[in-house]
């Protein structure tokens, strides 16, 4: 367990206490396995997800790439149970997430939305500490310490009193990541993290996400149409199009794939860099 984590949780244990003195658990994250089997979803007459089958290993960084409108974000929203499928299943650590009812899941999951989805009425610090306060995880002193630590992790130390209207798009994305990290997630999902960001800020964000992977253990799923970003960060990549999963492999395998759909996607995504 790294020293900063011990400091946050207090004396090497993973227990916190709320203001009433009750002990609650703010446990160290552990990566989870995600199994998606025969997932189908239609909206109106439009069949968005067709027989999606994926297995994501614990602690893996898995990217889902593909053109816009192919259901990448819809797939992510299934994993966090914002949408229910027409058929198929999703198992996280062996638990069918759509059949667990009101039972508390045995894992923690958080999502970084495409729009960052920060709450405009709250400051940066209040956004990051929202889950901790609303779910009464630990004492206010501990919460403040956690907020400071999570903001430090994303390179925004000392910015907790700023309002969301006072920060840039890149900073908003990092605050959203800090907010997700405050949950101590076993599974973290990123929906188009580079959307609305310039290339320099995207690169900065990629470095932040890479450093988080080194410091913390959790499973990561990234949905992106930014091929370079996805290939840089991920252990494995799946390409999706309107007919479902095209191919799954390591970044090298995807880059060297002979599949014409993938070759076309790589060409159209990178041809600007070739100076054409």
């Amino acid at each position, binding site marked *: 367990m790294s020293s900063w984590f011990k400091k946050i949780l207090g004396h090497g244990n993973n227990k916190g206490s709320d203001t009433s003195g009750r002990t609650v658990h703010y446990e160290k994250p552990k990566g989870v396995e995600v199994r998606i089997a025969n997932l189908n979803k239609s909206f109106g007459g439009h069949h968005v997800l067709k027989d999606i089958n994926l297995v994501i290993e614990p602690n893996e960084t898995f990217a889902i790439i593909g053109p816009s409108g192919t259901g990448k974000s819809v797939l992510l929203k299934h994993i966090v149970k914002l949408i229910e499928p027409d058929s198929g299943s999703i198992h996280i650590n062996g638990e069918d997430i759509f059949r667990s009812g009101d039972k508390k899941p045995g894992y923690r999951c958080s999502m970084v*939305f495409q*729009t960052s989805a920060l709450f405009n009425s709250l400051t940066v610090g209040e956004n990051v500490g929202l889950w901790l306060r609303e779910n009464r995880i630990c004492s206010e002193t501990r919460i403040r310490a956690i907020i400071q630590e999570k903001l430090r992790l994303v390179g925004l130390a000392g910015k907790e009193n700023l309002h969301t209207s006072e920060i840039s798009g890149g900073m908003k994305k990092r605050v959203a990541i800090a907010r997700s990290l405050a949950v101590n997630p076993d599974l973290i999902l990123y929906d188009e993290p580079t959307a609305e960001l310039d290339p320099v800020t995207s690169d900065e964000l990629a470095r932040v996400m890479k450093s988080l992977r080194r410091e913390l253990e959790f499973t990561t799923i990234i949905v992106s149409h930014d091929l370079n970003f996805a290939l840089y960060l991920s252990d494995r990549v799946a390409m999706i199009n309107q007919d479902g999963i095209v191919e799954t492999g390591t970044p090298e395998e995807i880059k060297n794939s002979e599949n014409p759909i993938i070759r076309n996607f790589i060409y159209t995504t990178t041809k600007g860099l070739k100076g054409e």
Partner: protein
Amino acid sequence: MFEFFGRKLLRLFQGTGEIVILLLQTVFYFKEAPRNLPSISRQLYEIGVGTLPITALMALFVGMVLALQTGSQLALYGTQDVIGAIVGLSMVKELGPVMTSLLVAGRIGSAMAAEVGAMEVYEEIDALKTFQISPVRYLAMPRLLGCLLAMPALVVFAIVVGVIGGAFVSSVNPLINVPVNVYYDNLIQALNYTEIFKGLLKATVFGCIIAVVGCYVGFKTTGGARGIGQSTTRAVVLSFLLIFVANYFLTRLML
């Protein structure tokens, strides 16, 4: 044609059911109110204190116009001395609750729909759900409680200002010319606690309508900025409609 009307009717029933469900869910979360005091206080301030100036203006002129119109007609028959009772009872039973509610629906109901609608469109409500925070508890409950607490207070304020406006016009208008003490004596004779209670009951019901409709329309918002604009309008129109309908049935019940 049948299909068109049938579809409209089904949507009406569905919407009514969803509003009732939202109301019940919001009331269920009243038990969480003690730990949401900051957000409830914020809503109370915006609804109550924020609406005071315009409520004062509205009530003043409503009272003045009521006194002017009624007093000038009564003066033709020499019975203008009862103007205090008429203005007082009208303000307490109808004009105070209804006019104040319409004002709050336009000002606060639209703001609620816009704020919650923007949160829905920009995925903030989805973010709340992923953090296991109920959007009904976090957003709707403080707004409903704020309205339930602020509306009766606003209505009382509106009644007082309206009565004062009526007294002013009654005393200075040469056609009516009713001294303030006569106006006041008549007012006190006519009013009783039952009438005031009925007025406050209406205020509470109307406050409930404004908050639930504003939040409901906000939660159902789709379609970006345009959708938010449409939701704002829809919340105001629906609130107005339901206030008028509820006013009739409440008046009928309390007769």
